[in-house]
């Protein structure tokens, strides 16, 4: 089963290689693919993507947002914080593995320290004790690792239920799931359902954190599809530039550069 999953991903990677050749550096004056003066995106499937986004928006409105409202009504904000800390701490091995693959030594030290302190002193990761001491969380994933290795975004995709991601990042999230030792542990016991439940909980938590932003963006943009696409690419750029690492020391934070008129 495991080998099947891995070979499936390898196959996908192999087939999508030409797609990944679409690098930022090829940004030309081709209006339909690239936004002028800013890091490009490649969106050859825009028609299909727009349909999927429409579907996702309906799901948001009738399923996810009501669920999130219910969750926020039942669980007080302190409790939500505990849940979010716990899930994030479980993902630490994935953050660490990616930092190793990126050769991000400072990041590795930070994640290892956080994981140890929060797991033991933070009651199994439910309290983010390390952040109080200035060791802030840094989100890593295999998409970022591939970006550090020089692999381009590939085509922009809107994935049903899950939302938008470049093909590279979408694959990256899949690889992260495979990397996670907790998934491996439960997959090799009779308690596979726990792995699924944790994944579902993480997804719900992500949706919960995104929903306020999504709602205001939906309200304030004329074409939500393209505003969202721009935000996704900008967010990834700053994550890849490890924006968060530089949060506290201020002056080295990443800001987008662009042409003016």
């Amino acid at each position, binding site marked *: 089963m495991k080998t099947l999953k891995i070979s499936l991903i390898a196959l996908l990677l192999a087939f999508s290689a030409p797609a990944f050749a679409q690098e930022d550096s090829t940004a030309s004056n081709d209006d339909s693919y690239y*936004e002028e003066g800013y890091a490009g995106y490649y969106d050859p499937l825009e028609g299909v993507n727009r349909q999927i986004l429409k579907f996702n928006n309906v799901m948001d409105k009738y399923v996810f947002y009501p669920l999130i409202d219910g969750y926020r009504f039942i669980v007080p904000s302190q409790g939500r914080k505990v849940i979010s800390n716990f899930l994030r701490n479980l993902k630490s091995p994935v953050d660490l593995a990616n930092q190793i693959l990126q050769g991000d030594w400072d990041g590795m030290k930070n994640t290892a320290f956080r994981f140890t302190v929060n797991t033991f002193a933070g009651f199994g990761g439910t309290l983010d004790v390390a952040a109080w001491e200035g060791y802030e969380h840094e989100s890593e994933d295999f998409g970022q690792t591939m970006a550090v290795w020089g692999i381009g975004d590939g085509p922009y995709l809107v994935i049903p239920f899950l939302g938008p991601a470049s093909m590279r990042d979408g694959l990256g999230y899949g690889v992260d799931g495979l990397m996670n030792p907790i998934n491996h542990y439960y997959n090799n016991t009779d308690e596979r359902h726990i792995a699924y439940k944790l994944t579902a909980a993480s997804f719900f938590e992500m949706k919960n954190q995104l929903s306020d932003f999504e709602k205001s963006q939906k*309200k*304030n943009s004329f074409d939500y599809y393209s505003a969202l696409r*721009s*935000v996704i690419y900008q967010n990834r750029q700053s994550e890849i530039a490890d924006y968060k690492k530089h949060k506290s020391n201020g002056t080295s*934070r990443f800001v987008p550069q662009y042409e*003016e*008129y």
Partner: protein
Amino acid sequence: MKNTKTMRSIFLTLFSLLMVLPVFASAQASQKAENFVENRVQETLNFVGDSSISMTEKKAKFEKMLNASFDMKTVARFALGRFWRKLPKSDQARYYDLFENYIVNVYAQRFDEYSGQKFDVTGSRAEQNGDFIVFSELRPDKGANVFVDWRIREKGGQLKVIDVIVEGISMSVTQRSDFASVIQRNGGDISALLDFLDKQIVASKN
């Protein structure tokens, strides 16, 4: 022998002073940009969070602040991107006007969120093109801190904001994608965007 040594040390001192001077000047200008952001944002948070002021009055005050602190024409032109050159001269004034109203309405929806937030400038840096980036943090009562960076440019001897970057996401870049897409999806017709802006403003008044 001793003379040359003194000469050399004098020369070195002068030289290092010359080298340091521009750095010093830019650090001072950078500090000015930090103060500018600090003051304007604090002022704005104060009246936005004041429950004794009506919404209409808040909007009017906000618009005044926007005009005084932002280079609205540069922001507006940037949002239109390459389509700026295609906008007929006769429509420019109308576009500037619509854009400003649009921005006021977008922010006005969030006035409630801003009340009770603490704000700190955390640093700044000079960019190669002469702009300054001022880094800051909004600290809400509950929830995580929000990192807000400001692109500042000197225009006619005055500092002006030309972009706001929230958690790494530039408002200007996002607007530009949104606007460009509306125009493109209407066959390159800029007046379609102007209509959208018009409608949004009307809708927000109801």
